């Protein structure tokens, strides 16, 4: 989500002129950089590409986010600071969509666990064939362990999360290739 402040004076870009920023962007592209941070006498620039994992799939605007931090500036000039939030996580990564998989998403907020208890064998892995209603993982919320069941029959081909990872509502957990109906 880049705030391209065209030819506005330095008030909006915090004392950095646009050609300079463009040079940095070029530099990043050329060297395939995801993130670039630069500090100089009280001015800090941070450019970050919204990382989405596998490069497959189109993005019309791969523009990096721009965060310009002013030293101890009062919050008054609102447009000057473009806030850099954690990018809202995409619900389904591009490559998975292309394959037309059934995605099992998290129905709750919590922590993802691949197995029933630490050290135990994972419920499923890539290649595991599952039935509808079969437990796939545990999501812990408020100290309660919730078993998440598959809503389709098929084969696990993608696992989008790692053991111990916090997940939000609607987060993609598994990609299942359902059996084709004959």
């Amino acid at each position, binding site marked *: 989500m880049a705030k391209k402040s065209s030819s506005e004076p330095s008030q909006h870009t915090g004392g950095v002129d646009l050609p300079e920023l463009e040079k940095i962007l070029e530099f990043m592209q050329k060297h395939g950089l995801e993130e670039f941070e630069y500090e100089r006498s009280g001015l800090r620039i941070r450019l970050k590409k919204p990382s989405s994992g596998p490069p497959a799939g189109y993005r019309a605007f791969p523009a990096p986010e721009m965060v310009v931090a002013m030293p101890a500036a009062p919050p008054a000039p609102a447009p000057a600071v473009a806030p850099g*939030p954690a990018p809202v996580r995409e619900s389904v990564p591009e490559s998975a969509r292309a394959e037309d998989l059934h995605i099992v998403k998290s129905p709750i*907020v919590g922590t993802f666990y691949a197995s029933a208890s630490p050290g135990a064998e994972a419920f499923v892995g890539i290649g595991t064939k599952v039935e509808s209603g079969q437990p796939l993982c545990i999501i812990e919320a*408020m100290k309660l362990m919730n078993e998440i069941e598959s809503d389709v029959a098929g084969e696990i081909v993608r696992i989008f999360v790692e053991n111990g990872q916090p997940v939000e509502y609607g987060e993609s957990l598994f990609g299942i290739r359902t059996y084709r109906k004959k």
Partner: protein
Amino acid sequence: MFRKILIANRGEIALRIMSACRELDIKTVAVYSEADRNSLHVRFADEAICIGPPRSSDSYLNIPQVISAAEIADVDAIHPGYGFLSENANFAEVCEASHITFIGPTPDAIRLMGEKDKAREAMGEAGLPIIPGSPGVVPDEDSAKRIAEEIGYPIMIKAAEGGGGRGMRIVRNSRELIAMFQTARAEAQGAFGSPNVYMEKLIENPRHIEVQVLGDSTATSCILANANAPSSAATKRFSRNRPPLSSTPLRATKSASRSSTR
């Protein structure tokens, strides 16, 4: 001071709270329903967690989801904003049990104020001047008749668990009383889950002055602002920063202010 706060709300109040957090160098966590994925409050926060489908009851009002989000984001406190869970005593208790500070009154204080008849009683006991009315919930039609006579018509029947200007009925004479009493109880039951009503003398053409008092856990309090509020049944809580009209007797304003800090 808190290190990180989750704001259990959205829209302008979430933005206001996050603004304040920025000034205080507190990290912010937004929660959102799927419908609000691209909302401003989501983008303004340091972190954002999706907590449910579009319906409020499944997301912003879903206590387990909100608490779970607070846990995985490892926040120190939750700010409920206004509306939603801000006056939910149960939510305040769940926060306490989860060792997350609820930025607001204690569960007991919320409960007390939520039950209007008990709130009246408590204020009366604290020595605040209150509108003449029933000593508590009016249990039946006979009591209703007797109490209404004592107070003197016109009176107002109000739902004990009501709020926001709803669940109220004006009664101007004894002929209307029973019918109004029954309707009010039925409406209260439907809207608030409890048929309990109490009565107050109706003040016609009042001058409604709201005094905002801010207090913290050290029992320090101060008055924020006196606002002239419109006195219609459909009053909604939008901007309260209106100064009293210059025609409002200063004496009345000062007296209201003094009472409210007791």
